[in-house]
């Protein structure tokens, strides 16, 4: 089955969250979030209260998928960076290690140059963490958090 589960463990989650928190500050951004290519949110930081990050994550993943589809037609591997400029908000989207997506939302308080610079550093660090995480997930002796659940537990969820 080519559908391996992605498991996020506490150690890696904390490392990712630290990088995301720092990126918000260093890039002077409004919001930073990390999602996987299927649109699942992994971590976020900044002014996220006012923002529907679930929808944004799904649309970003759709956007990356569509751009990836275009790249394939042009025999490119992938377009790893996207930038959308609005009147007040701008979005910088970066694919990290062909695996996850780093999204930075920023306004006129910062510049695209600074965002790019900080994203580059954060991407490299995130890539290392996700490589470690993938090794951990693929380890046959790994901790399997969902294994404790029984078929009855699942049945009970669907009994009205």
């Amino acid at each position, binding site marked *: 089955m080519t*559908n391996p589960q992605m498991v*996020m463990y506490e150690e890696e989650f904390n490392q990712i969250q630290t990088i995301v928190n720092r990126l918000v500050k260093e890039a002077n951004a409004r919001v930073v979030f990390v999602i996987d*290519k*299927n649109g699942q949110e992994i971590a976020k930081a900044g002014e996220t209260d006012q923002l529907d990050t*679930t*929808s944004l994550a799904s649309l970003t993943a759709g956007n990356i998928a569509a751009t990836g589809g275009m790249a394939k037609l042009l025999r490119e591997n992938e377009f790893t960076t996207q930038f959308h400029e609005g009147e007040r908000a701008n979005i910088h989207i970066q694919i990290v290690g062909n695996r996850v997506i780093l999204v930075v939302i920023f306004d006129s308080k910062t510049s695209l140059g600074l965002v790019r610079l900080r994203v580059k550093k954060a991407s490299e660090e995130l890539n290392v963490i996700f490589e470690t995480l993938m090794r951990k997930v693929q380890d046959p002796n790994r901790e399997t*958090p*969902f294994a404790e659940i029984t078929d009855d537990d699942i049945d009970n*969820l*669907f009994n009205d």
Partner: protein
Amino acid sequence: MSFINVLSREINCKIVYYGPGLCGKTTNLQYIYTKTNPDAKGKMISLATETERTLFFDFLPLALGEIRGFKTRFHLYTVPGQVFYDASRKLILKGVDGVVFVADSQIARTEANLESLENLRTNLAEQGYSLDKLPYVIQYNKRDMPSVAPVEELRELLNPAGVPEFEAVASTGVGVFETLKAVAKLVLTEVKRQAG
């Protein structure tokens, strides 16, 4: 590809509604959206044309409750059913954990159902999936229309493997939650199987 967050004890899964154009995929999601408690759902997003045909996808995030402290969250997607949007359909199938095939029960749509099911198999195979191994259910929609094929006939054509199947009228909600629950249960069972 399910996503389990150990820290927040969340399990996230992706379910895709597939089927021919105008079979009622979006209507399924709209009904689920209108009948779900606001705490359990996010915003429904529809990337549609001006004539309300799905252009890329519909998206509905949904929480289905907790299993032993694990929050179960499902991301429901539809694909654009029209034949010429095939490139987009392939993209939506990436990372899928479970599939609902929505068939249009009307006799006139028999060919379209078969073509779409074949297309589903082909597109899944391209991503390295097999429909026979994925959590998968079938919904025979539009049972209220005047000229529908008998369920036995639809079963023979579309469901030779005998996966769970449901009769539905998505516009009034008949069979909609039964379909969703069935596929969600299959997905969680598969997640558990892989974890164990």
